[in-house]
């Protein structure tokens, strides 16, 4: 299938991208407000921003540490 045919499906991805952005922003806000994380903060910031979709989830599951 040529690329033009794939293009018609791009609008279907908009909600997926929005959810991903919400996750990323929520993770970054949480990271900024938190005093202590497991491992360096800058590294978590990179993971959240650069690892699509899974990054914020890994942070929420493993990165947070109770103050």
């Amino acid at each position, binding site marked *: 299938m040529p690329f033009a045919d794939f293009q018609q*499906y791009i609008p*279907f991805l908009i909600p997926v991208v929005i959810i991903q952005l919400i996750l990323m922003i*929520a993770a970054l806000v949480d990271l900024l407000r938190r005093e202590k994380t497991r491992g360096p903060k800058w590294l978590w910031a990179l993971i959240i921003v650069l690892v699509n979709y899974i990054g914020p989830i890994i942070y929420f599951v493993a990165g947070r540490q109770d103050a």
Partner: protein
Amino acid sequence: MNFFIVLRKELMEQWRTKRLLVILAVMAIFGLISPLLAKLTPDLLKSIPDMPAGLADLIPEPTLTDAVLQYVKNLEQFGILLALLMSMGSVAQEKERGTAAMMLTHPLSRAAFLLAKFAALAVTFTLSLTVAALACWYYTLLLFEALPWDSFLALNGLMLVGFFVYIAATILCSTLVRSQGAAAGLAFGALVLIAGIGSLPRIGTYFPGQLFNWGVGLALGAADPAWPALWVSLGLIVTFLGIAWLVFRRQEL
């Protein structure tokens, strides 16, 4: 302090710790992309350069069946993983932090404490799966055709019971040990055990895994009922929570 006050506190905790957000986001995304993947995979395969002409013709056109199978496969895998990750700390973490002892100095029964934990996770999963199901139903309608809503609802109900089994199992593991990590390890062992026994030919028909197969059959109009698996699953939920209560009742906090 009664059950509903603790439940409210637990639900607010789900929100505050972003558990709700994570579960909702993961499930919603798979609800959306499953039908899309089913629709696009054959075309993606065909677009591989230098594919022999005959082979490309063999790749079947995507159907409604593919959409439902993708949805159930993705949700089963990630739903069970989420059940484990989001429940592993439920009791163990409160013991680690000492907050369990604090909570229970109020006139609150330990049964209500455990039950509220389970109920809060159950509400979170129900809400998230509802969103995922609506997303999948809508995208399937746009990309393929309408799924019969009643049997699709039944499919999701069965999946939910399957998730509840894993949530109850993980809460039990979380009660048995003192740290989240140990709870996760133990729960993963339980998961492998349940899935392992569930894949054996004859006993498997009585295990939670069968619920997902039954659901797929229902949604596609070829129902192969697995009532025993449903009863066993409900029994497992009650048993796991019951054992958790028996252990937790006598535990020093």
